[in-house]
């Protein structure tokens, strides 16, 4: 199946990001939102895992980046920024959502 995995916790505070990245399978997608968007930034301890995950598209929710003062240029290349409608589209086009809360 092609699943949408969601992460809403900071990778520096909780294990949600690390666990998700270790369970996500090729062909699935990861959406970072709420404090999860901190994993989308360049130059963090999480960057390597975001870049090295194979065959997995990573998205970040724009409104949560904006709310935290995180400009688009700080986001890792290849991470696609989506709005709320994009979130809905992602949820609809995947087989199911797996939330790493």
């Amino acid at each position: 199946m092609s699943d949408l995995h969601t992460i809403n916790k900071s990778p520096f505070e909780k294990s949600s990001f690390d666990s998700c990245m270790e369970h996500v399978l090729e062909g699935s997608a990861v959406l970072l939102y709420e404090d999860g968007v901190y994993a989308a930034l360049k130059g963090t301890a999480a960057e390597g895992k975001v870049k090295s995950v194979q065959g997995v598209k990573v998205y970040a929710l724009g409104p949560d980046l904006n709310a935290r003062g995180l400009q688009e240029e700080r986001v890792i290349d290849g991470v696609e920024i989506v709005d709320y409608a994009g979130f809905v589209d992602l949820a609809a086009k995947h087989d199911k959502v797996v939330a790493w809360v």
Partner: protein
Amino acid sequence: MSEEIKNFLYLNRRAPYGTIYAWESLEVVLIGAAFDQKVSLAFVDDGVFQIVKGQKTEQIGMKNFSPTYSALGDYDVNQLYVERESLEERGLTVDDLMHLTWEDEDEDWAEKDSIRVVSRAEMAEIITQQDVVFSF
């Protein structure tokens, strides 16, 4: 209502007592068990602490809900997947866990183990094979 039977997985990633997640998960599992769906539980990360044996909560003033896991087999909830790496990271082995069983009516009520220790890679496959995943 559709009578299609779906696979539901309850993904447990938190320790008991420190937060309400573990207990809430158990409550939802028991409610969901009334709906004749295929239900399984996964214990990952700190979730493995939920089924450690010998829990005694008298001195913290909270209900010890660990005996409830032993009742799951009676509700046809008999597939409990425990991630081996999560156990090992926490210094646990399967011997530290409660012995959870169920009785197979198709085999003259033979007692069988509910817990299956699986690798992280196997857990990833188990998750993706589900129709619905509830995260706690």
